[in-house]
């Protein structure tokens, strides 16, 4: 295992390369998930506002 992690002395280059690969793609996925959440919240807020406008307020 230690020999595998050492990568024949090139660990300082190989593992960062793999880390960059997965981190950048992970950031892509995360950004999409966050954007989806934000858009859904905005849309829900919009719909709530429109519903409130359609039903006239009964309380004085």
């Amino acid at each position, binding site marked *: 295992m230690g020999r595998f992690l050492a990568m024949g002395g090139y660990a300082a280059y190989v593992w960062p390369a793999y880390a960059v*690969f997965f981190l950048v793609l992970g950031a892509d996925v995360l950004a999409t998930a966050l*954007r989806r959440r934000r858009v859904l919240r905005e849309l829900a807020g919009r719909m709530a506002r429109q519903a409130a406008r359609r039903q006239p307020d009964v309380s004085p």
Partner: protein
Amino acid sequence: MNAFKLWYHKLGSPPYFYLFAGYIRPWLWGIALLLAAVGLYGGLVLAPPDYQQGDAFRIIFVHVPAAWMSLFIYGVMAVSAFIAVIWRPKMAEVLAMESAPIGAAFTLIALITGSLWGKPTWGTYWTWDARLTSELVLLFIYLGVIGLYHAFEDPRQGARAASFLAMVGAVNLPIVHYSVVWWNTLHQGTTVRYFGPSSIAPSMLWPLLVMTIAAKFYYGASLMGRSRVALLSLERGKDWVRAEVAGAPAGG
């Protein structure tokens, strides 16, 4: 009735595409992860060290798929962009604009892993090598497309303008590559041996191909996810979006 044409027109309709994308996305994810696991095992464990570069060559399994994907995604984006500019269908605009950030991500990966590979092989993180330089210019083209898209207040107008820029970039890209290669030979004189063994052994080739296919499936999955969000925001006010928002766990 032409079945393909029918399918094409159905996919061109946002609510149908939204459902379709939601349905195939988990499958694309599953295949991408499975292939990536197989490819990584083959590349990191099974493949023997290169007789010249030792284990440093193993960067090939992320670098080369990323570099290929950066061009492949540009191709997909340019085709969608062409359709978006000529026929103006909403779906082509969405696909082109949501492809751009994924392509930029792969370009960035190719640049960083390329320079990480360059240090042990050339002794420097950055050299004005023709391929690295072209990849850098490709990143600028992607950033220009993304920047122009976001510079407009109306997303559809921005998508069309950025699509036009993507088409210009598609024409420009081969010219950049050709001129950079010419410039490189002009100034360096000595040729730098490019990474990787000249004839690649089968034990190295199959993990490389598997990783490339995994990256393609990842692109598909990410594109579907991004397009779904973009459609929700573009089609707000339409009934199908209201139904979707009411059904989704909003605010969570």
